[in-house]
């Protein structure tokens, strides 16, 4: 770029400035603090309560359950209900980071200040992903520590070094940035708060349970959804557990990671490209 008329050189455009600006924008909204704070409390409490229930009921469990209790312990570390809460919180934060700009009109001020919209959106993607990774790591880490501490009361807690334990924590932590980016991408496409929320819930929470795994193509759709990928990743005894059926179209751990990566990448690209040429 040439700053032709101006006599003094203007400072070069730096990407880190955009990162800093997006970080200021995210942390200066009280609603974000509330959503994240309440979400984290809910998630951790939900998981801890599941562990507490197992702690209370443990003496009444049968011998088979007791010998296979590992999968229970790791399931309590991050329960399905907590994962749903995380999906909701993360996708909402991702969505409002862009939809909030459109619905308030702030987007015009933002784009006038930073006409390089792709750089701006890339910065938004990076900041949202980073913040939500930290958030996911915190909620998943705290949940793991607390639930296993509770189960230790029965001598059933596992350490993070236990095979599969780290995967449960990492997959649960990464569910947050993946869903936040999905919310951001959908938000950039849709640009209306209510519609974006409906779509987020539909794609991230409703479809994963609604789509059957009976046919090959529906199983493919099902397995390609982030929530189901998470479920596969945290199912440490997948295929070896005496209580559940092996699915007809099984998936792999690698497949789960790939689904996470593909959603994050695709959503990021959509967010960056979708806003570039549209009028605001």
């Amino acid at each position, binding site marked *: 770029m040439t700053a032709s008329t101006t006599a003094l050189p203007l400072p070069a455009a730096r990407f880190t400035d955009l990162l800093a600006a997006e970080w200021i924008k995210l942390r200066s909204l009280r609603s974000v603090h509330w959503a994240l704070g309440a979400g984290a409390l809910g998630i951790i409490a939900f998981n801890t309560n599941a562990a507490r229930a197992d702690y209370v009921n443990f003496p009444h469990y049968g011998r088979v359950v007791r010998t296979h209790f590992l999968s229970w312990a790791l399931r309590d570390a991050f329960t399905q209900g907590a994962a749903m809460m995380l999906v909701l919180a993360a996708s909402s934060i991702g969505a409002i980071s862009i939809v909030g700009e459109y619905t*308030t009109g702030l987007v*015009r001020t933002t784009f006038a200040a930073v006409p390089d919209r792709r750089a701006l959106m890339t910065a938004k993607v990076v900041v949202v992903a980073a913040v939500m990774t930290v958030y996911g790591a915190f909620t998943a880490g705290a949940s793991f520590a607390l639930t296993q501490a509770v189960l230790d009361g029965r001598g059933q807690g596992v350490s993070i070094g236990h095979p599969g334990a780290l995967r449960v924590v990492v997959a649960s932590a990464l569910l947050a940035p993946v869903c936040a980016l999905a919310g951001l991408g959908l938000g950039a496409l849709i640009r209306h708060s209510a519609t974006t929320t409906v779509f987020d819930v539909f794609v991230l929470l409703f479809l994963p349970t609604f789509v059957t795994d009976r046919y090959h193509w529906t199983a493919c759709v099902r397995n390609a959804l982030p929530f189901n990928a998470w479920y596969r990743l945290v199912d440490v005894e997948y295929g070896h557990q005496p209580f559940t059926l092996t699915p007809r179209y099984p998936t792999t751990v690698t497949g789960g990671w790939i689904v996470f990566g593909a959603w994050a990448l695709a959503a990021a690209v959509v967010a960056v490209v979708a806003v570039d040429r549209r009028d605001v």
Partner: protein
Amino acid sequence: MPHDALPRDGGPVIEVDRLTKRYGGTTAVRQLSFTVRPGRVTGFLGPNGAGKTTTLRMLLGLVEPTSGAATVDGHTVRRYPRGLRHVGALLDAGDVHGGRTARAHLHALARSNRIPAHRVDEVLAEVGLAGAPAGRRVGGYSLGMKQRLGIATALLGDPPALLFDEPLNGLDPEGVLWVRGLFRRLAGEGRTVFVSSHLMSEMENTADELVVIGRGELIAAESLTEFAARGTRPTVTVRTPDAGTLAAALSAEGAAVAPYDGETLKVTGLSSDRIGEIAFEHGLLLRELATETASLEAAFMELTADSVEYLAGEPR
């Protein structure tokens, strides 16, 4: 606060060249061309729906023109990776997030353009929002306060070119005076200042140059004095208890008669002498008969009469 980055020969030229914007069937802006020069305040006038906001958005790179070009200093704004040091703008005072404080809003914008943080306090002080108001959330601001925040945003990058869309909306008389002084000062510093309004009276004491549009097309681009000289047909104000009869009589003589209120008529096309004679012939009592000198308002109304899109309260 002289702009140390301003070139000696003043700010950049804003150039609009055969600019067209269509929204489906409606053409908001049609083949519009004009130039805005530095060192003076240029008013951008047109009735509601004339295409002022659309033009300003195209200038800022927010709306993509259907054809034609809008440039600041020879470049479309989209070519500048960061905008605030090139063009400052207040489009709509509501273009902020109500959940943030004014200070956080400006801080984020400053940071994105690598503008030092002390600039935030400077512009807040300049628009009269320093101190406690700057720490409050914008959602609780009055329209006038939001307008001031918008002006602070425009000034943040100390830019050589500034665009303002209806900046006087919601300001109290003191605020209006202040904004006029600010525009004068910015232009005096050699900057290019482009201010839109749909009210001629707002421009009368603000602008040196005018760009007048109607229905998306250029009507006039000239100095304020040249523009005022266009309003040649004087308007005569007549007050009579029998306005209906007089209106009919004057119309019969070929005058254009606009009822002003129950007793008052605004007449063009006839001299006050002739109107007095006609009233006398009809035995009508006149309570007032006055010729108004050609005003800017009249020139504006006359020129845009054909292009006004939304007429309200027109008697049928």
